[in-house]
Every structure is written in C-alpha cells, then in structure tokens.
C-alpha cells in the first residue's frame, strides 16, 4: 500500500504543483491518477520514488516513511515505466531489462536469464535480446520498458503515461496485455494518464486531480461514471459516460434467440430456406460466426467476399457495452453472442439488451462521500 498523507509540492516561485494530497493506493491494485495538464499527477508520481522531493507531508510505502529511506535503495525497489520507454540506447534489449538486477548485484548470468524470461512474458521474441532499442518499434520499446520495470520483481510499480506515445491500435493491445500481466502479478501500481478512457479501463481506483494538485474525486471507475462529485469531474469523465458505464456491468441473464446458420459454400436456395428477416448468419465448421448475408445477393454459392462483416461479436458474460454494441452494429439487427471458444450461442436484439440495462442497479451513491465533499 502507498499512502499520501497531506503531501504538497510548492516551488520557491510560489507555484503549487501539489497541494495537501491525501489518498491511498491499495496493495495489489491499479490506482490511476488522471487529470488535465498542470494537475500535478506526474509530480505526485515522482514524489513516490523521490525523483522529486515533497515540500510537505509524508508518503508511506506499507509502514515505511519514504523520506527515511536511502533514495537509491528506494528506487531499486520500485519499478518505473515512462512515456517513450526511456530505454538506454547503447545497451542491448537484454541488458536494458537486466539493469536493476545488475544494480542489485545479481550475477550477469542470472540477470540475463531473468531478462530473457521477461522478454517472453511481455510478448517479444527471444531474437530481440541482442538488438538495440532503436531497432524496435515504439510499441515494442514500451514492452521492453515494462519488462525492465518488472525485472527485479518489485512489489510497487510507477507508470507515467506509458502507453501515450504509441498509435491507438497498439495502445489498446498494450493495455490489454498489461491488464493480463497484472492479473497474474498483482503489483501495487500507481498509473498516471491524461486520458480518462485509459483511466477507466485500467484503474481499480481512479483519482481525478484538478489543476494545482487537488484531489477532486477518488472512486472505482463505475462509481466515478455514475456519480461524478462536481461539474469538473462530470466534464472530465465525458459526455458519453452513461454508455461507457455499461463497460463495468457484466451481462448475465439475457435470453438468446437460436439462430439458424449456413456454412460457406452453401447455395442460394439453402440460404433462403434458413434466412430470417432477410438475413442469414454464415459460420465455419466449428460454428464461429463469419458474417451476415442476404440470400438474394448470393450468386451460386456463398463466397467469403460476399459477407457483411460490420457486426461486432460479444462473448457471453462480457460487458453490457459489448453486447449492446453487437446488437447495434449487426446488419441484421441481431447481435451475435459467442461462447468463450468463439462458437455461436445465439443472437439478441437491442431492445432486449435495453431491458436488461434498465433492470440493473447503478452504483449506490455513498452519502458519507457526498458529505465529505460538501463545502465546509
């Protein structure tokens, strides 16, 4: 657990970067600090490993006051990932990853073995080990950055906009893999971003900071979307927060409609016989959905290029947002639901999803929170 106790950072020129910040980042969870530029989120992060010294207050890691620790020892015990990775350009990938173990005095052989293990863990081929950072793409460098931070297996990780500098597709991949990694490792993570979508996707808890380093609200993402504490937080979490909140609700008990299907290569006559509402779903041999087709558009037999692939597919037990999107994006208006292996279970229509949404409870407003936030 990391605990901020009335932490401030005031500069001699009077700038207040962080002001009396108090919060806890629980053990084994991702706490995201999010806010507009100038809200002191990066300053707060860097005060944890004392890259920046606070001018007031205390920061505790478990029951240790960080100010009482040797700063170098403190840093070696904390993983640190930054934007653009900050890899050492003159060291090979394996040497970059082995940095902290080597600083801690591990033998070269042991440190490299650990580095190779991590290279695989972050999804990079072993062939990258002897390359230099400049020979990797931005996304690959960022994975190496994560591997380097994990090398000495620190209980605490600090991440400063680690995925901001890569393109959106790669960013999403990195985020997904990061969550998968975290579910195995259970590190205590403080993560800084300016992107509220990223905060909501990754955070177990999200701390919204406002300019001048004030904590505006700290809550889990679903609660934050349902009950922003004031206009600033409401604006910051965005206009489509109602829709986005559906990401946090697993869809459980929808009644699926059985859907007749035809395989690729089926004739127009077979498709017409099975079609419902002018559309028929085409699957492969193991019932994985491939796309929708209108029987009258089939010339002779069904070929892959004839299929309409615009519809998304939701996995059973996935979020209501995915299920609703599957229905909304489906050309036939019937959302395709698959099991965990990707095989078709049935379809659902948008109004049926809406019924389920309306039956679901929103996160309860917590009154003590509201009282605490009221002006005194």
């Amino acid at each position: 657990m990391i605990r901020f106790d009335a932490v401030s950072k005031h500069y001699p020129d009077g700038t207040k970067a962080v002001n009396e910040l108090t919060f806890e980042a629980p053990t084994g969870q991702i706490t995201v600090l999010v806010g507009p530029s100038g809200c002191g989120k990066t300053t707060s992060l860097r005060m944890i490993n004392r890259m920046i010294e606070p001018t007031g207050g205390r920061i505790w890691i478990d029951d240790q006051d960080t100010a009482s620790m040797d700063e170098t020892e403190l840093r070696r015990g904390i993983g640190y990932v930054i934007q653009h990775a900050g890899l050492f350009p003159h060291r090979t990938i394996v040497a970059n990853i082995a940095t902290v173990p080597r600083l801690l005095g591990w033998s070269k052989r042991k440190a490299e073995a650990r580095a190779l293990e991590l290279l695989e863990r972050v999804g990079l081929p072993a062939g990258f080990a002897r390359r230099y950072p400049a020979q990797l793409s931005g996304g690959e460098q960022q994975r190496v950055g994560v591997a380097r931070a994990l090398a000495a297996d620190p209980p605490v990780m600090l991440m400063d906009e680690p995925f901001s500098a890569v393109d959106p597709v790669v960013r999403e991949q990195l985020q997904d893999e990061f969550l998968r990694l975290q579910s195995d490792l259970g590190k205590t993570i403080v993560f800084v971003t300016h992107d509220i979508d990223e905060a909501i996707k990754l955070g177990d808890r999200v701390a919204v900071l406002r300019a001048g380093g004030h904590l505006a609200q700290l809550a889990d993402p679903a609660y934050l979307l349902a009950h922003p504490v004031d206009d600033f937080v409401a604006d910051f979490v965005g206009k489509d927060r109602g829709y986005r909140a559906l990401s946090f609700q697993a869809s459980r008990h929808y009644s699926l409609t059985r859907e007749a299907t035809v395989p690729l290569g089926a004739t127009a006559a077979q498709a017409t016989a099975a079609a419902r509402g002018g559309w028929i779903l085409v699957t492969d041999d193991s019932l994985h959905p491939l796309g929708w087709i209108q029987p009258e558009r089939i010339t002779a037999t069904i070929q892959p290029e004839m299929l309409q692939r615009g519809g998304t597919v939701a996995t059973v037990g996935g979020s209501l947002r995915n299920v609703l999107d599957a229905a909304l994006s489906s050309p036939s208006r019937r959302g395709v639901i698959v099991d965990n292996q990707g095989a078709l279970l049935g379809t659902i229509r948008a109004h049926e999803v809406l019924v389920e949404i309306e039956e679901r409870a929103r996160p309860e407003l917590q009154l003590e929170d509201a009282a605490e936030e009221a002006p005194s």
Partner: protein
Amino acid sequence: MTWLRDHIGEVLGLTVQHTYLAGVPLILGLLIALPLGWLARRYKGLYLLLIVGTGLLYTIPSLALFIILPFLLGTEILNPINVVIAMTIYTVALLVRTVADGLGSVPDVVSQSATAMGYRRGRRLISVELPLAVPVISAGLRVAAVSNVSIVSVAALIGVQQLGSLFTDGFDRDFMEPIIVGVIACVLLALAFDGAILGLTRLATPWQHAGKPAS
C-alpha cells in the same frame, strides 16, 4: 625522390616523434577535459567561465607558448615536455566544450530513467551518460587531433625535432624535397589519427551501427 630514399630512417624517426608529441597530449587533454566538461555541465554558473576560459587558451600563439613554458616550468627549452604540455593545453581548450555538449546531448528521459532505476550519480555518469556522449566527444577529438598534428610542427622553430624540422631544414637549404615530404607525412599522420579515432569510436558505439532489422 633520391633524398627520401637516403633519409627514410630519419623521416620515420621524425614521424614517430611527431606522433608522440601530438598523440600524448590528445590523451592527457581528454583526461583533463572530462572532469572540466562535467563540471561545466553540472554547474550552470561554471559553464560560461570554463568554456570561455578554456576557449581563450586556444588563442595563445603556439610559438609564444613554446617559449614561455620553459620559463614558467623551469625546464630546458629543448625539452620536448614543453611541447607536450603546450599541446595538452590546446587539446583541453578544444575539448572542454565538446565534453560538456556531449554530456548535454544525452536525452533527459534517459538520464531520468537511469536515476529512477536506482543509479547513483557517479555510476550513472560512467555507465550511461559518458557512453552516450562518445559520438559528440569523438567529433571534437578528431578536430583536436588534426589541429595538434599541425601545431606541433611549429615546435621546429625552437629546435624540438619532429616532421616540422623538415620544413625548417628545407627552407634553410632552399631545397624543396624535404618540405614536400614533410607536408605529405603530416597529412598522412593527420589522416591516421582521424582513422584511429573513427575506428575506436565505432568499437565503442556498436548501437549506432546496428541498423534497422528487416521486419
């Protein structure tokens, strides 16, 4: 060409002497410029003082320095140590700025991540910042090397033997061949220094030549 054939041993001897007088100061100068350049980088107030101060040293005429040094040091005027010290001063003059700029060329994000990994200041300098400053420092070193080869020849005027002695010898006797041989030998020596520094730099910076893998 007959002159060269008859005096090849002498020319080689002068070349060795010239290499020594230009090369040793290059190494000494670099060793002195490293901490000075680091100080200039580390303390903003010192930067201007050190850069301007050492830069001014370069404006002292070499002949004057060769003659003044024996008085200051109490050495014999013909002692080659005077030339070594003078050339070291010129090398320092050229390299302090280079070292400071080289350390400044290390990206902030790299130094910061080194600090965040748990490098202490000294170790960060040795194992992260200096290696990354090598390309810039090497560029300055190449200039200093060529400049040294050229300035050392002036020492012939005070009687210290090296390739420059071929010029004075040729002028005294109004005889072109030693002069031409001296010029060519100086150019070749400068090229050799340049090549050696380039080669060493390449060895020290494998990451600069790794290229993009086809992927």
